[in-house]
């Protein structure tokens, strides 16, 4: 692992909050924040950042398509082989969210300023689903979380 540490610790921070352990959560958020920093180019693994330069929306859409046929396909296959329902659930939701990420990026690249006319953009805190509309949906179509789990991006 190189770039994934920050997400590992932000996930642990949320888990500590749910267990009502505020001090542990605070420590996890700080550690996560440290790993948001850049890997120095001369450090081991610094070369891994070569493709972490700003990505435009068209490139990102293509990247999502390749994730679907590589990462998500491999994870689904491994999870089914090992009969791991948790991992399979992650791969199924993740691949649906990946398709939405791709579509949002492509529509944004094509429509520019008109994409959000009189509309807002919301993200489901439970699964990452992105919704464009006037109000958050009553239920997340991917993970079925209720509307209060959506955050409005501003």
């Amino acid at each position, binding site marked *: 692992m190189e770039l994934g540490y920050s997400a590992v610790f932000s996930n642990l921070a949320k888990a500590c909050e749910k267990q009502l352990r505020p001090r542990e959560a605070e420590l996890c958020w700080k550690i996560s924040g440290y790993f948001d920093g850049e890997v120095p180019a001369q450090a081991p693994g610094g070369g891994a950042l070569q493709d972490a330069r700003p990505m435009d929306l068209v490139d990102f859409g293509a990247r999502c398509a390749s994730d679907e046929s590589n990462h998500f396909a491999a994870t689904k296959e491994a999870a089914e082989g090992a009969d*791991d329902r948790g991992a399979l659930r992650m791969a199924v939701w993740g691949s649906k*969210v990946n398709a939405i990420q791709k579509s949002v990026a492509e529509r944004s690249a094509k429509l520019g300023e008109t994409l959000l006319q009189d509309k807002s953009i919301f993200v489901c805190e439970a699964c990452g689903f992105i919704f464009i509309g006037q109000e958050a949906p009553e239920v997340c179509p991917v993970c079925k979380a209720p509307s209060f789990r959506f955050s409005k991006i501003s």
Partner: protein
Amino acid sequence: MHAARNLRLCSKDCVCLFVCPTKATDTENGQVDFAKCLDGCRLCVDACPSHALYLVPGDYSEPAAKDGRVAETLLALLEEKAREERAIHHAVADASSPVLGSPTSALILKALEKSLRIVAEDAAREAAYMLPQSKATLNLIDQLLEERPARSGGEFPERELRELKELLSRA
């Protein structure tokens, strides 16, 4: 295992105040006083008509080890989504600049960044790091303390990692 109150569900019927033998449910901050709450008592949990009280386990059983190939594919997915999140993060900085970007694309990029983080966290959870108290998490803390990966813009969080390890091992 102590009780906790979900204020989103609490309808202030206050039955918990009558049944609690130690007055742990009677506080000013809305939450149960964990120090007064009796381990596993659950009188308030069963009495609450709104299901607003629940028990928080003090210790969890160790999760079953993941299949090697499942963990490997999930960690690769986590790393890929983290890399994309970072690339989009750099683009957010560009889009926010008045010369390069537009308000709409800045919002779209911010939404993508957040969405990518949530997917990466889900992969991390299923790969091994669901429970803060698990061996996998404690081993990762040890590994980081040993390897001290460098990052720009901050001091290596040694104190935080040590305190976290101490608190989680005690749990």
